[in-house]
């Protein structure tokens, strides 16, 4: 009986707490994105992913899902050499990215869609890391297709350009890799990122480009 009473109380509370939430979420997202800008290791991204997923569940907005998927993609990239561990993150990232897509108006929100497709390309790239020989054929192609779409929707998207640079850097020459082009693209992406402003809109990429360019020294 005690349990039932408690449940009732929770029920009532929920009724009235719904109103207050929307305003809080923007701040919450802002805080989480600020911490994402400083994140580096798997534990950072794991904690942030949970937070973004939590925010996503409370409001109908594509951004928290987008960031949650991005965190999962980052974890996949960090686990690149440990194929055994990637799959759950990769699958989760895929689910979140699809949820984000459902919340976007694909006809008008071209820039946002380009950002999302960039992250989807990364998510499918992590699937390749599980075992390039067997997963590469399907998911490598899928990853490439999403990147292509991202670039078509917004050719100036510095994050799409970065992922392109990454792919060009790590793909063997015979399969279309080009290290010089990769450097050029990374620099181009950095130039575009000059206009980036902190906020909740996607603005990551600087650290990633710098890391890629550091291989040339």
């Amino acid at each position, binding site marked *: 009986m005690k349990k039932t009473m408690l*449940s009732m109380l*929770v029920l009532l509370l*929920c009724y009235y707490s719904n109103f207050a939430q929307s305003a809080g979420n923007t701040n919450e997202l802002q805080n989480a994105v600020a911490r994402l800008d400083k994140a580096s290791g798997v534990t950072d991204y794991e904690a942030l992913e949970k937070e973004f997923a939590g925010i996503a*569940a*409370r409001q109908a907005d594509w951004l928290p899902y987008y960031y949650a998927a991005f965190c999962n993609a980052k974890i996949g990239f960090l686990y690149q050499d440990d194929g055994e561990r990637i799959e759950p993150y990769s699958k989760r990232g895929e689910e979140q990215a699809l949820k984000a897509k459902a919340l976007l108006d694909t006809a008008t929100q071209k820039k946002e869609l380009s950002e999302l497709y960039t992250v989807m390309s990364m998510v499918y790239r992590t699937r390749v890391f599980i075992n390039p*020989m067997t997963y590469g054929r399907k998911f490598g192609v899928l990853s490439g297709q999403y990147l292509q779409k991202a670039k078509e929707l917004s050719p100036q998207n510095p994050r799409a350009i970065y992922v392109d640079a990454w792919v060009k850097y790590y793909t063997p020459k015979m399969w279309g890799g080009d290290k010089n082009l990769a450097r050029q693209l990374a620099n181009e992406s950095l130039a575009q990122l000059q206009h980036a402003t902190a906020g909740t809109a996607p603005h990551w990429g600087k650290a990633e480009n710098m890391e890629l360019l550091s291989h040339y020294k």
Partner: protein
Amino acid sequence: MKKATLQYYLPVLLLTLLCDIAAGQQKVSGTVKNDQGAVVPFASVSFNGVAQTQADSAGYFSLETKASGKRVLSVSAVGYKPFKKELVLTGVPLLLGIILQHDTRTLNEVSVSAGSFDASDKAKGAALTPIDAVTVAGSNADITQALRALPGAQQIGEQDGLFVRGGTNDETKQFVDGTLLKNPNYPAVPGIRQYARINPFLFKGILFSSGGYSALYGQAMSSALIMESVDLPEKSSARFNIFPANWGIGGQRLAKNNRSSYGININYSDQSFYNSIVRQTPDYFSGPRYLQGDANLRMKTGKTGMLKLYTNWSYSDVGMSNPDIDSNNLKDRFQLKGKNTYTNLSYRDFLSDNWKIDAGIAFSYNQDKTVNQLADAAGETQYLPDEPFRSKAFYRNINTYFAQARAVFTRMFYNNQAIRFGAEHFYANDKGVRNDTNLALTDQLTAVFAEGDIRLADNLAARIGARLEYSSLLDKMVIAPRASIAYRLKDGGQFNLAYGIFYQEPVSDLLYSNRNLDFTNATHYVLNYTRKKNNCFFRVEAYYKQYNKLVKTYPVFSNGGNGYAKGIELFWRDKRSVKDLDYWITYTYLDTKRNFLDYPYALKPAFAAPHTATIAIKKMFQAINTNVNVSYSVAAGRPYYDIRYSADGDGYKVFDQGKTRAYNVLNLHIAYLTRLFKKGKWQDFSGIGMGVTNLLGTRQVFGYRYSADDGNKVAVTLPATRGYYLGIFMSIGIDRTDDFLNEHL
């Protein structure tokens, strides 16, 4: 249990008083927790497949519906199995306590794996893929050659097939999509290894069990090689390869609606030109020549069904002349012509959400025609009336007709649990002659089997099964129990235990002359530990195997033989430490003795070396588009015996015995890859492949043959010190480069 039911349906009458429910609306609310009692936040809740709401961070959800009557409530969250429950909506508010089960497929899964290497196209990290397994340098597109680089298998240079854990090559059976591949290799030629008829790149899954395999398979005392063929190809394509001794052309077409495909391949190999450049020890007077073709048809049926037809036919001709061991001036001329067809039709489908069927039928026809003669230096055939020469002139022609039908039903339960059961029937009919003697046998073998996958705890799984087999030829029925358990540790390591009894009918050659035989059998006990981490894979396995009722041919034809095998095997694979380098190392320790056939007492058999080790290395040089593949195997010396019938009344005796020199072989394969057409719809993947087997030119001794009077002892060795190949390959339409370069390893 009672408490849970109460929670699901607890109508909260009080709630109706407190909440302002509109007429006809019903409130359904609840909390979502996992099987360990912890709150699961943000689960999605839907009614009859229509999303309704999402639980909050405390796992609480609440929704209102105008619906009444029976509705299915679904709750799902990432990492958990979907929860479904039928509710009866009567207008009374419901407060539910929902418990989600961990979905082990996305987490650290415990899976039963003792005794086997599972090479699947879904392999993660350092687990083997089919391509990894079959692309060991020196394997010549023969799956059994390639699998010799895995622990448990012996390095046997003069015979084909797999010799696993003290077993003969007859004790390993190959299965394609469930049905038996009756004659996987070209017919055996004494002293010279022959190759597989089937292209190993046909398979998307290869399970190599060196002990303790599932009750779904039988009639193999040592090992089962369970292979699953690919479904539809990704694109239409054409391909060819030209190597001096090996030509091939083929293609496959995928229908526009992506629901069906067909393909055809033809391969021809004539080694006489090659043998004129690289001298071979037997003097080949015919061939060796091999012609092989295959065709396939694959189609999706309905939503989830898959129907596959595969057919393979082949012809071979090997004629060779060796100096006769019992005389100075005679030649022993041996010729074997083989014909084989194999057809397999398989079907699989989901009958409902929880039921699955796997069915198949297979037919095969095989003809082995052997002629052996003695000839003098001028090539004239000689007929000598006395032994040991008399029995060297023989003619043998065996025709084997084989058919099999099989069906397996699977009922799936939550938590990856399942029950499988089914039945199969094998028909085999041999007709032939050896000189003037007719050889014939007909066997009807029926088997029924069942097994269950049971999850005892989150980290503890078991597979328990049994198999009942009846053979009309032996008129015997046997029951084979099988069991294995897997226990997963927190760090990702896993312990596996397996036990089973494996029955097998004696080989046809023994049954031609004696029908009063029983099933031979082996009992396996296997303990194994595996750990996969950071793209590395470690495995250690220890086993004990007891052979019973092996066939003795002397002093009386009986099932009076027996034996044992025990050993420890190690496997280590590392894909991470050096970029673009993949290597594995195996070590096999084997202690085995058996008393079978004409052995006078229990002996270490001639096909068993106590220590075997292999290192297989694959390195891609990205900058020069070149793939280098090396394998190096070493094995301690194998025992050899001169067992003959003694005229002094002692029966069969060991007249001489010893141990061969240690074996070591280094194989190298290099492939240069390129693309000739870089633009356009059709893309090509081309290259040059080259390789050398036994690169170091080590003298290999596999055993000795003895003359009848003991005076002459001849080493069984390689037909040529080294083997070479160099050729080009091209595939247009689809990236099949891997297949091509690997086919010629």
